[in-house]
């Protein structure tokens, strides 16, 4: 065997440890769970394609629109309401998110070659997340295009003279409205979705990296203290061991607070970039409407998000602290991070793809049991006016943090700290 192959073989043997294999297997498992959950959720979500029609025209044309939507496998419900307000408030339509208002005189106006308007209302739920709003927006676009095509056909069938091509192509331009928590604003649904989605991707990603960074930091600190035997020296000192735990966590909490502060500054800058006057793009042109919908985060909202992120990082630090205590040495930290990274990935990725307002109870239970999920969802919940859920999340995260601190203190007060090791069986 050539010396090169001997060297390669030795390197592979050094790198391919049981810890690494377990880490990879765990990651595969997490991705499999996420894939399965998202797949079944999306199937269920796709079957909820429906629209509530508030028909003020009650004409052959409005019935034709309804039939066209039904043919396109859209579940059409007719509301007896005489305006959009009562239809949105009606308890029987509580689960519906798409509404179409057909104005009185639509058929008469189009038949006379006069322009009219059809209004579309998209309702966003308080705890909507992930692809739910995107799919709702996509359904609205599909409905809008189908209605526009049908109305265009109606006009063309009349063979009226002297009409502009623009009118024939789109005789009743759609007016889009977004409905959030009872507030109704004229704003394209795609702009609302783009704005809300930015929170689903950007902010959780930032929190994700902060958690990984701070967890790795404290785990390395604890494991290296153990490896260098500086911990044994400290433990043999007359200092109260609970104080040792608290001092480590306080120092880490300070760093976590700095990281959260940085996170909040980044978020503020990101938000002002989106809605500020100087910011280009479609979303910024809708800034005032987004603000009136309550999507702009107030100082108290920032405080809640910051608090949620801070307690989330503290939870991660307390868990990482215990995992660090179980680590044999600094080298084994990668493997010790696996359980933390697994739950982090679940709580980060699943809400991106799954609409929490429509998810089944099992998925909800798992996700809300993971303390990190509450921080990932905090910006969206604050924007959607779901502050109570954020506060409950903070309380839950604080309870989890307290439980892990108590466990860490217990580990510190006994000899388990020096004797406990999480070892993988040796592969022969």
């Amino acid at each position: 065997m050539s010396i090169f192959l001997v060297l390669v073989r030795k390197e592979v043997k050094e790198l391919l440890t049981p810890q690494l294999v377990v880490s990879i297997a765990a990651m595969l498992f997490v991705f499999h769970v996420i894939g399965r959950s998202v797949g079944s959720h999306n199937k269920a979500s796709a079957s909820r394609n429906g629209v509530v029609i508030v028909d003020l025209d009650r004409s052959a044309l409005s019935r034709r629109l309804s039939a066209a939507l039904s043919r396109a496998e859209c579940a059409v419900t007719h509301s007896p309401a005489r305006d959009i307000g009562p239809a949105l408030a009606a308890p029987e339509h509580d689960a519906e998110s798409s509404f179409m208002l057909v104005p009185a005189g639509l058929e008469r106006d189009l038949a006379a070659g006069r322009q009219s308007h059809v209004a579309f209302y998209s309702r966003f739920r308080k705890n909507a997340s992930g692809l739910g709003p995107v799919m709702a927006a996509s359904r609205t676009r599909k409905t809008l295009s189908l209605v526009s095509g049908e109305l265009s056909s109606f006009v063309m069938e009349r063979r009226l003279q002297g009409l502009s091509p623009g009118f024939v192509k789109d005789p009743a331009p759609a007016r889009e409205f977004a409905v959030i928590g009872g507030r109704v604003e004229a704003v394209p649904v795609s702009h609302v979705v783009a704005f809300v989605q930015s929170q689903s991707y950007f902010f959780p990603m930032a929190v994700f990296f902060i958690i990984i960074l701070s967890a790795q930091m404290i785990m390395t600190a604890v494991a290296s203290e153990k490896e260098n035997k500086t911990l044994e020296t400290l433990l043999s000192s007359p200092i109260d061991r609970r104080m040792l735990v608290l001092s480590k966590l306080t120092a880490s909490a300070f760093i976590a607070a700095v990281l959260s502060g940085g996170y909040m500054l980044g978020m503020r800058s990101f938000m002002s970039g989106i809605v500020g006057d100087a910011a280009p793009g479609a979303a910024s042109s809708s800034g005032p409407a987004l603000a009136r919908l309550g999507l702009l985060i107030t100082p108290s909202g920032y405080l809640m998000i910051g608090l949620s992120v801070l307690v989330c990082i503290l939870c991660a630090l307390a868990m990482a602290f215990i995992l660090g205590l179980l680590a044999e040495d600094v080298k084994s930290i990668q493997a010790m991070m696996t359980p933390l990274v697994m739950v982090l990935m679940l709580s980060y990725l699943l809400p991106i793809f799954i609409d929490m307002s429509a998810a089944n109870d099992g998925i909800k239970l798992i996700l809300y049991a993971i303390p990190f999920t509450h921080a990932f969802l905090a910006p969206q919940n604050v924007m959607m006016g779901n502050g109570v859920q954020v506060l409950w999340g903070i309380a839950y995260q604080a309870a989890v943090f307290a439980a892990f601190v108590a466990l860490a203190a217990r580990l510190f007060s006994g000899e388990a700290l020096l004797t406990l090791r999480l070892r993988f069986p040796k592969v022969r």
Partner: protein
Amino acid sequence: MNALEARDLVKRYKDFEAVSGLTFDVKEGEIFALVGPNGVGKSTTLKMIATLLAPTAGSVSVFGCDVVKEACRVRELISYLPEEAGAYKNLTGREYLRFMALVFLKDGPKAEAAVVRGEDLCGLADKLKDKIKTYSKGMTRKLLIARAVMIAPRLAILDEPTSGLDIVNGYEVRKTIKRLAGEGTTFLISSHNMGEIEFLSGRIGVMNNGRMLACDTPAALKRRFSTDDLEEVFIRLTQ
């Protein structure tokens, strides 16, 4: 009063017994050495005395204080130096001594006095201003030994105190230990260096398989085995 009394000391882990019924005393001001092959329970014994591990059976008392029931009081009387211990690499030597003095003595003026003593004991002079990560193994060990004894503990427990030190530094450390013992500090040390043991110790405890095989002065042990060589005593006892 004895500085240390160990009675029928046992430490059992899930699948093996590291220490099996160890009994010995250390007198105040004495340098007592625990010797034995690797893995016979010396470090485990020292850790039990240093309150880091709890005995499975038996008892240990330090100046009359039980290491389990009065662990906090015992920690005020001892100073423990683990084998191959490290220091905080991003601190300077002086910062490390100051931090440890405050942790062990919990009193500013006393800690400052201990730091002055520690600076003198380690002999690192201007190097104390440098970060520990720049130190050689020998320099770090000297700093750690100074840390262990600068607080003037009543019982200093040193696991392999001169391991990794060159001849000159090892000699200096041995002289320091001897001097401090003369000033009243009791030492319990573990070592593989028979020359060092013979130079330092008043009495030696020879361990094997978690048991005490013999416990006496170097001279008495040599007489017992009719030899001038302490290493030969060790080999005949442990094989």
